[in-house]
């Protein structure tokens, strides 16, 4: 690896101030610091520093996302096959190789577009501001594809990503400064700008619009559940629903949905990685699940129709709930920053997610909106925690 180091040494003078490619320094620096931890040494204060840095932290999140990605590719392939065959009863674990390849054909372009557009814009801003790439988008770039429907047109992914990176993050100052979760901003943009491509029963299976079978729909569990609230439910009663979508299927993720969100099991593997390494907040994840469960139980207690009667634990494995709890709510920049605040933040997030999911007829899924809403509320939660701390100090002053 010595030649690479020598090469970087040789190239460096061209990129520093006064060099002929000075403008491209952020790009060079990003590459160089990716390949080599730079030789920066401490100048002030503590002479030694922890081994951890933002690159390793972000890379750990990407590792945690890999189970979801791989399973998502396979699942996309499966439902794409289902759509072209028009038969929902296709064996899930058969023809694994072809399914994976079909899935890859749908998912890989989305991932590539998301990274290309996002990183391109990040570099542009980096060059304008004269700093190298800050690592935040490495994770956002992977989260965006995983929250999109498999059939989403690529240009839509590109536009949403561009919107999220520019309006959601860079105008606030870049990584660490944003108010809303970047990946969810992208999804929300697509959701409201192109609703027909982001919801309904035409988008969740790649190629479903070309199906030759009459009466076949690419509906999802949540779409079918929402129909209980209308005059024309898809299923006659709750039992018919749970026969079609068993708890285990939903837990494993063998149901249609956004690319990476369907498998609760894979999300839990990701959660284990995040919690074990300490990158993701245990408090947020646990309280988010608790909030969802509490709201589910509350709705059960009210009851009245099949959706309200759906067992509370079912809510936790359907839709993007687990994915949102593990990967979206835990984003440290947009979550509450105080330790006490994180508990309330997660709890209200979980409660709102299920509340919107069940009671709002316009949106079959509420996780995205709940987390975005809590992103906005997080500073207020923190404010009260901080005020509590300040008050304790003032009380001591009065007592003294």
């Amino acid at each position: 690896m010595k030649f690479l180091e020598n090469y970087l040494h040789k190239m460096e003078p061209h990129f520093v101030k006064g060099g002929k490619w000075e403008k491209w320094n952020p790009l060079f620096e990003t590459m160089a610091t990716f390949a080599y931890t730079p030789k920066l040494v401490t100048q002030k204060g503590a002479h030694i520093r922890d081994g951890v840095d933002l690159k390793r932290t972000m890379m750990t999140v990407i590792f945690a996302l890999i189970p979801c990605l791989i399973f998502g590719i396979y699942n996309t392939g499966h439902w794409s096959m289902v759509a072209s065959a028009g038969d929902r009863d296709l064996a899930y674990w058969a023809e694994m190789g072809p399914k994976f390849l079909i899935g890859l054909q749908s998912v890989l372009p989305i991932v590539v577009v998301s990274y290309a557009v996002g990183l391109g814009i990040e570099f542009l801003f980096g060059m304008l501001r004269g700093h190298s790439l800050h690592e935040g988008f490495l994770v956002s770039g992977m989260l965006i594809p995983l929250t999109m429907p498999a059939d989403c047109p690529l240009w839509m992914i590109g536009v949403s990503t561009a919107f999220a990176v520019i309006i959601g993050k860079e105008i606030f100052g870049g990584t660490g400064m944003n108010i809303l979760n970047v990946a969810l901003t992208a999804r929300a943009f697509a959701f409201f700008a192109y609703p027909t491509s982001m919801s309904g029963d035409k988008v969740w299976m790649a190629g479903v619009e070309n199906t030759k079978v009459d009466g076949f729909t690419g509906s999802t569990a949540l779409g079918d559940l929402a129909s209980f609230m209308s005059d024309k439910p898809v299923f006659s009663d709750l039992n018919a629903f749970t026969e079609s979508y068993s708890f285990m299927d939903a837990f494993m993720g063998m149901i249609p949905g956004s690319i990476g969100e369907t498998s609760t099991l894979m999300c839990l593997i990701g959660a284990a990685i995040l919690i074990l390494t300490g990158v993701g907040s245990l408090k947020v994840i646990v309280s988010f699940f608790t909030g969802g469960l509490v709201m589910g139980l509350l709705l059960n207690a009210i009851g009245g129709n099949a959706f309200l009667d759906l067992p509370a634990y079912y809510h936790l494995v359907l839709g993007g709930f687990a994915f949102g709890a593990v990967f979206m709510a835990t984003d440290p920049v947009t979550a509450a920053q105080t330790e006490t605040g994180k508990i309330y933040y997660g709890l209200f997030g979980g409660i709102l997610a299920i509340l919107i999911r069940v009671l709002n007829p316009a949106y079959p899924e509420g996780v995205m909106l709940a987390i975005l809403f809590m992103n906005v509320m997080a500073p207020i939660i923190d404010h009260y925690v901080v005020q509590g701390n300040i008050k304790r100090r003032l009380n001591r002053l009065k007592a003294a």
Partner: protein
Amino acid sequence: MSNTVKLKKGLDIRLIGEAEKVASEFILPTSISIKPGDFHGMTPKLTVKEGQEVKAGDVLFFNKHQTSVKCCSTISGTVTKIIRGEKRRILEVQVTSNGTQEFKTFNTVDPVSATSEEVKNALLEAGLWMFIKERPIDLVANPDHEPKAIFVSAFDSSPLAPDYDFVLHGDENNFQTGLNALKKLTAGNVYLTLNADSPSDSVFTNAKGVEINSISGRHPGGNVGTQIHHISPMNKGEYVWTVNAQDVAVIGRFLNTGKFDTTKLIALTGSEANHRKYYKMVVGASLSSLLKGNIVGDNVRIISGNVLTGDKIEADGVLGFYHNQITIIPEGNQYKFFLKDGWMGPGFDKFSNSRLFPTWMFPKKKFRLDTNTNGEERAFVVTGELDKVFPFDILPMQLVKAAITQDIDGMENLGIYEVIPEDFALCEYVCTTKINIQSEIREGLDLIQQECM
């Protein structure tokens, strides 16, 4: 009354290179330097000229704003150099030894029978006042202030720190005299805080006239800041003075003998140091002869003090005024390939408070850490990591942000009066952002002093 405080938060950074518990004979240095920079916020006014003869205890300079606060030479000899920096600021006053140690004679004072005014004047006159530090703001104590308490820590918990039980063993008389003197300086208590996790030397356990508490847990348990916060927290408008345990003995020695004898045991530590043991020397001593032959390799950082709060010095540097150890660690000015020993490598050689490196599975292993920052500076992204090593009822990240944004109200509300930079040293160590938190806090404190005091 004796309490034990249990700390749950904190971090012991396990480094290679503790000093062996062997003390050298007294080494009279060829020269000493006193650096006014060691006394934050002081404007020195010289009383000596180059070429002038001085004895140990003769005044070198005093504080322009508090003329009673004086700094004295710690050896006898000739003032050889006054090193100035930008705008003729005095950086160092150097005294070259005349080969023997002659002391200016002061009257001995018995602090038990003397009035507090007499004790104060005696300490001010002979330059011992410099050893008394004041919180908030972390300055040399203002003799006009009334401290609500004086704190002395009986142990140092920072990495590779000298063992005070060894250093002060047998020095009961001087240490007790020093405590008696401190007792006269405050209307409140003198607090001596022991390490609850290991038995303390009789010099501490037999101390009289002070309130003895103990504290258990990891670093920063030995920091006076942590002890003050848990034992007698400070409020706005209050002052607390602190004195290092070895300096208490120096004060006691002066009162008992009438000599300004700053001899202390200094630990030579760190993975790149040879002959790691305790060396007997005076404050400000030139280290060039000690360091010669005791440094492994040539790409090292020499630190006067510990790795978290010490000052970088050169191989011909001097011992800082408040330091009790010298640490030598490797410089980290090499590129590190990302998969080998860089940011994505397995990292068996990286000590981290996060569990992103496998080293958390080896709770006994000691590390040879270098000065590489292990990453570039970034904005705050990760939350909660500072809280884990900050055993105060203060929100560290919020306070640091208030300091960075020069938010005076915010700093006051969030508890800036209870902290000094060294309290944030561990935060600075663990922080993913690589922001220099200690200097941010220092600037915040300077702003507070300017605007609110």
